[in-house]
């Protein structure tokens, strides 16, 4: 009995679909999903894997089938049939990939929105304070560096009434003495935002249900060759490994002290470059307890491969206990005195004193700068 080719096509199509569906769910290519965001990303990947498996099997199948079925028999010097094209077929195989990529785009768009990729209002949220205005003057930071006269003219954006978001975020982070102790924000001028497609602080913001709410835990992360430093403004802790509690939304503010680094925890499926002069943020919610590795993903020098540390995801109770332990440990260090001083009560030059002294800048210079700025 000869089976018609349409039946064959149908059968092959069914088998192909089933195999693709099965493999898309059982590929075992991803590590544990340890954050709420990771679950969403995995869903997207599995879907793409189903489609990819189908296309892969189809193409390889046709190739191998053609190589066997249509290979030249010996002695046959004829040409094949002169089929030059088939417009409906060509429209079909243009339309199908187009529909597939549109489908994947829409799904990706949705996942991206869910993990907080869109945060269009972030730019307006930060309040403009007198202090941040004065600190956003680039002159102070430039003064020390050689060849900066040229640099200043090349890089300064014209005076603008827009707030400098990077500067504000940096100032905010530097309010925490522990962060100020590990960051060199005073040496690296912060990039000024440009409207539209300009400089931005790269962000993965809150998930849609958390929009407008502050994150439950804030961690300032500083990347430098070849270490990650974590400071917890809520408690004043400084550590070399990160602890986060399950179920609380964590916000990370990060920047780099020297070259570009990238914050990547594979189990969180999140990655963000830490760029000197910019303040990047990501928000995520840990969900699976365990010890994971935080990896620097952007080439940062010869020991880039060694720039790894632990991220511990633990129950809120265990986390709180860890915070207490860290506080006890840090009390024996002189840093505790700095914690006692409330920086908001200080004038800018008092606040900057520890840093400006290192840079050879006198308070008078700062005041002049401030005056010049106001005129």
């Amino acid at each position, binding site marked *: 009995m000869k089976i018609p080719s349409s039946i064959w096509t149908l059968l092959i199509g069914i088998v192909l679909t089933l195999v693709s569906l099965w493999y898309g769910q059982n590929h075992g290519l991803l590590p544990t999903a340890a954050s709420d965001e990771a679950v969403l990303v995995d869903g997207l990947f599995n879907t793409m894997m189903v489609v990819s498996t189908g296309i892969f099997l189809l193409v*390889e199948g046709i190739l191998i089938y053609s190589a066997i079925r249509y290979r*030249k028999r010996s002695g046959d010097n004829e040409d*094949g049939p002169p089929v030059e094209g088939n417009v409906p077929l*060509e429209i079909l195989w243009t339309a199908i990939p187009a529909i597939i990529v549109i489908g994947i785009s829409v799904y990706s768009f949705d996942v991206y929105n869910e993990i907080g990729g869109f945060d269009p209002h972030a730019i307006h949220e930060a309040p403009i304070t007198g202090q941040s205005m004065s600190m956003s003057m680039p002159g102070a930071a430039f003064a020390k560096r050689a060849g900066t006269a040229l640099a200043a003219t090349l890089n300064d954006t014209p005076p603008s009434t827009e707030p400098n978001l990077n500067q504000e975020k940096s100032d905010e982070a530097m309010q925490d003495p522990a962060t100020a102790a590990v960051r060199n924000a005073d040496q690296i*001028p912060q990039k000024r935002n440009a409207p539209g497609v300009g400089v931005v602080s790269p962000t993965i913001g809150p998930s849609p249900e958390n929009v407008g709410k502050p994150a439950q835990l804030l961690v300032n992360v500083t990347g430098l060759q070849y270490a990650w430093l974590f400071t917890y403004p809520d408690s004043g802790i400084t550590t070399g490994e990160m602890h986060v509690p399950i179920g609380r939304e964590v916000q990370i503010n990060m920047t780099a002290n020297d070259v570009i680094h990238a914050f990547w925890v594979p189990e969180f499926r999140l990655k963000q470059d830490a760029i000197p002069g910019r303040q990047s943020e990501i928000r995520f919610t840990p969900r699976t307890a365990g010890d994971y590795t935080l990896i620097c993903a952007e080439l940062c020098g010869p020991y880039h491969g060694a720039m790894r540390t632990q991220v511990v995801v633990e129950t809120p109770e265990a986390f709180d206990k860890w915070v207490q332990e860290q506080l006890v440990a840090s009390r024996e260090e002189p840093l505790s005195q700095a914690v006692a001083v409330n920086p908001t009560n200080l004038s800018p030059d008092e606040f900057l004193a520890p840093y400006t002294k290192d840079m050879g800048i006198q308070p008078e210079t700062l005041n002049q700068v401030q005056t010049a700025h106001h005129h």
Partner: protein
Amino acid sequence: MTQAQLQETANIPALSEEPGIRKWQDYFTFNTDHKVIGIQYLVTTFIFYCIGGVLADLVRTELRTPEVDFVTPEVYNSLFTLHATIMIFLWIVPAGAGFANFLIPLMIGAKDMAFPRLNAVAFWMIPPSGLLLIASLVVGDAPDAGWTSYPPLSLVTGQVGEGIWIMSVLLLGTSSILGAINFLVTLLRMRIPGMGFNQMPLFCWAMFATSALTLVSTPVLAAGLILLAFDLLAGTTFFNPTGGGDPVVYQHMFWFYSHPAVYIMILPFFGAISEVIPVHSRKPVFGYKAIAYSSLAISFLGLIVWAHHMFTSGIPGWLRMFFMITTMIIAVPTGIKIFSWLATMWGGKIRLNSAMLFAMGFVGTFVIGGISGVMLAAVPFDIHVHDTYFVVAHLHYVLFGGSVLGIYAAIYHWFPKMTGRMLNEFWGKVHFGLTIVGLNMTFLPMHKLGMMGMNRRVAQYDPKFTFLNEICTIGAYILAVSTFPFIFNAIWSWLYGEKAGNNPWRALTLEWMTTSPPAIENFDKTPVLATGPYDYGLEKAKEGVPLSDPDPVLSAGPNSVLRAEPDPAVAANPEDRK
């Protein structure tokens, strides 16, 4: 003059015996013959490929174990930086130019390129810049900031090595701009009368798209590199954050060239594959216009996808969506090509010789790179795998499984035209088998490595990845071994191989209508088109008598190419002679 008459004049002994300047010394001169330059390009770039391959195997040797135990981390970074720079700027990009130089004038019936001296200048920029780059390794201060050379890292690593890298890449970029101008003008102005754009072979279409893309994007890289050189050597702070510069601007400028560069590296071989598959399947190419115009679509879309390399750096959220969509859309013209090639093979009479095997290998492995490319375009997934071995796997499936297999297919296909001799089929198949095994063994496990958490450009990694890295390293050694049969085959066949005749594949494009190797100025008289480039199986091409015909008629018929094979010492169709 018809193709048929042309074929006969080509067989005049005076021409075919010693077709002009073909002393070996000619290849070491500032020759302006496009064929000499084409072969100069191909041989030079292949030497750089071997050097780049040695560097790759040194990198893989370091990665056999999770610790840094083979070279120092500084040397390791220099190794992969030079490996990438050499493979991209000194092998794949100029190899495409090499084929274009050799083939374009022949394919369009021209005597030479539009600007022969400019052509020689473009080639002669390559050896010095390559030597410069390799010299940096010898003097001990090689560039080690990756082939992307992102500031501020590139500004704080060795100044000498980085300066050499910038100089070398600038020279190579200049070379490819000069080449692109030449290809464009040649294609626009020097086609024979009667050859409209839609009668051009698809390789010409592909080079047209490639050259246009080169011309638009390469100057931006040059600008970026010049600014980087100012930062490095003159203390300016265009990209240096300590003076208020913006490192992300460099990334934009770099990728505005370097993503299109991927298409500059793959489009010529899309073109080559479109030539190889119809000839060896004995069928017209399926959807000529679709393949031709999709090259233009890829060339245009290629210009607006660069920021997908920067999804995790500093670009606004909505911009990531824009670049996600443009990147995804590129899959559509690429898919059109793949399905058209499959349809060309479908129902044909496929000769499974080395050229065809490499072409089929190209389609089969490139599709994996294409699929992972769509995955990388999806922003949430890209955020996870960016800068990991998943990306390394993807780009090697595109550039090795695509471009390099394409180069090999093209070499096996056009070697008879270039040298007048056939490559040995047995060793060709050994070469193919080893390459396919090595390629998949090296790069397939990298997908999993990347997703599980292995970042790229590291000398030390988590010990849990040891096993997969071991497989990759063995695969890389197989790939190294796979080139030996090819090298010996190419050298031996060039000297002693079976004589090819003018048209061993019975192809219909114009380059096969002259002697092998072609004489100076290619054609005796301006050719006249009698058939389209891919009219296999059509009546006008069928008029030809089968090869076994005892009494070949030498005069009439547009496709008398098929008949002009009276000399049994010349392999018309090598498989049939056995």
